[in-house]
């Protein structure tokens, strides 16, 4: 259940962004996440309300972009999709591959509620 630690780090980042941009609150945010990050989107989503309670991100809506596991073959150069526990080249089957997608855990963007300005 390390997802709670991740959720706490996420709330802290959201709080910093809200403060830096002088906004009122974070209303939604988008996370790009791959299975090889070791963090499960559903568990992160259930941990988030616990971590966000009482913060400026309390009512923020989570949006996940799930990154596919993709590898580039160092032998034949092909790029292909792979299973997270079989990172083999889809073209030639070699295991000398490099991960090009699938281990991301990135806060991509945040939508902020701005203070109402009266002029």
């Amino acid at each position: 259940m390390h997802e709670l630690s991740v959720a706490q780090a996420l709330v802290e980042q959201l709080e910093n962004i809200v403060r830096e941009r002088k906004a009122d609150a974070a209303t939604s945010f988008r996370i790009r996440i791959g299975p090889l990050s070791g963090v499960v989107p559903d568990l992160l989503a259930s941990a988030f309300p616990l971590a966000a309670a009482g913060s400026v991100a309390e009512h923020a809506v989570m949006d996940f972009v799930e990154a596919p596991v993709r590898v580039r073959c160092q032998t034949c150069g092909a790029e292909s999709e792979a299973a997270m526990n079989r990172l083999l080249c889809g073209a030639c089957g070699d295991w000398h591959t490099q991960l090009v997608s699938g281990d991301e855990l990135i806060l991509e963007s945040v939508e902020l509620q701005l203070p109402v300005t009266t002029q």
Partner: protein
Amino acid sequence: MCDTCGCNLTPGNRKFAYKPVEPGATTVSVLQNLLKKNDDQAAHNRAHFDSRGILTINLMSSPGSGKTALLEATIAALKNEFKIAVIEGDLETENDAERIRAQGVPAHQIVTGTACHLDAHLVHDALHHMNLNGVDILFIENVGNLVCPASFDLGQHVNVTLLSVTEGDDKPAKYPVMFRAADAVLLSKTDLLPHLDDFNPVRATSHVRNLANTAPVIQLSARKDIGMDGWYNWLREQLAAQRALAADGATRRPAIQPDGIQLHAV
């Protein structure tokens, strides 16, 4: 590239950063690792190790696969060659730190309570309780767990993952995040192999290779002193490599540590 002016946007990730917004709202592009605070602390820890010429090794495995026994044997064998220090991570008890101290080397126990992994801040706090003067190799024995520890950078230079032959040889296929992160895999308790005909070291190695991991797979038994020279030689090589890097003002991270969004930008 920075996280403030938008220069980290590329044709590949631009589409994720913007979307139409309601009046009174604004969308900001962040593109920052979710564990940035941990990663920053880890970088600080690593710089601390580098400035002292210390090689730091994060030792991970499931509970009971022989991490502490490996350290006991390693300290006993190398105590005239290197000065070793150990940080122990467990949910409860000082038992492991006491076992290490009995070998005559400094050990600090982190008691995590219920936390399933160590993070860079816990390690940093532990460093304040330790005297690292003259230390060559610092082992961080992570909480016995094949899941969570793999996701948190501690500031270590290399990861070593143990797989004991009393476990299934398909553990690397079941826990790919952990075994992909290993810079060396140690198949431990190999003295028991004659009694365990369902564990095949060749199959275990092939599961590691299926994770595109080129790490050496070393078979050993700490209790019966079998195959330990291969492990000691690997340690000597890593320390020499680390010292050479540090002399050039460079450092190293475990082979698979994500280097941030840049890797995935295109």
